[in-house]
């Protein structure tokens, strides 16, 4: 059984943290699905407004996606530009 070095511990915990950060992907998934579902029912009710509905839906989905992307940014920082290693 080799000793766990400080760097090894930080790297391992950062990998776990990156995985946990990506749990943030659940929210945008639900939100985007909700928006797409409502857009589909709106097109069903009013097929003439399809292009307007589609652009509004895409805009809303893009904004809803932001929180997930914050999680992604944290995961990427933890994996590839780890700020914690410099604190040893």
């Amino acid at each position, binding site marked *: 059984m080799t000793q766990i070095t400080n760097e090894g511990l930080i790297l391992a915990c950062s990998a776990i943290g990156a995985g946990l950060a990506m749990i943030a992907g659940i929210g945008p998934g639900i939100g985007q699905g909700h928006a797409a579902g409502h857009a589909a029912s709106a097109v069903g009710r009013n097929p003439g407004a399809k292009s307007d509905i589609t*652009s509004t839906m*895409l*805009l809303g989905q*893009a*904004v809803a*996606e*932001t929180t997930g*992307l*914050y999680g*992604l*940014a944290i995961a*990427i920082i933890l994996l*590839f530009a780890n700020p914690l290693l410099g604190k040893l």
Partner: protein
Amino acid sequence: MIDMGASSSSFLLAEANVDFMIHGLLKYHLFGQELWLTTTHVGMFLVSIVLMIFAVAVNRKIKKANAKDTPGTLQNIAELVVEMLDKMVDGIMGARGRKFANYILTLFLFILFCNLSGLLGLRPPTADYGVTFGLGIITFCMIQFINIKDNKIGAFTGLFKPLPFLFPINLIGEIATPFSLSLRLFGNILSGTVLMALIYGLLPIFITLGIPSMLHIYFDIFSGVIQTYVFCMLTMVFVTDKMASEE
């Protein structure tokens, strides 16, 4: 640890080192700072060259265009793009939006070509936070310029609008705009780049010729076009939001 007979079946194994980082190509010093020319600069340079050639070619074509002639392919493409963007800008920004159409078209073509450059094996320049944050800063300056120009002193009192103690939250909301705008584009394109690199690293080398093409269609073309559209759309929405409504 696990050595799967690397010598005998190495052609079945994936590439050992997956690579999707930005690489520095040339180091130079300016005002005591150490600066790098990176793959991002090369990508942006190529995209700019392509766009400039396209612009010059279209300009020459349009100058010579005759109303009675049948338009050629290049003219058709240029007219299609310009008409589409004009319609989009008019639909969102109204009558005053016409003067923004030039900027929006430039932005649209630049981001689109940057995103699509992933298809040619370049690292997309928009997968570098420096590029997207620059674009976000331009949008932020435009928003604040319109805000101050149209609302005069109301631009500052508007921060205290619903209730005075909400001032810090309003201020953060204003400042967060370029960050969320640029992080959205950056995150989407970077996640596509990283996933493609991981998949290229995961598959054995002889399969990489076929399978990833489907993923390129999703990550580079679909996602790239949607994010371009969203960036331009949000820029227009934010700017229109600050315009004084004139009735």
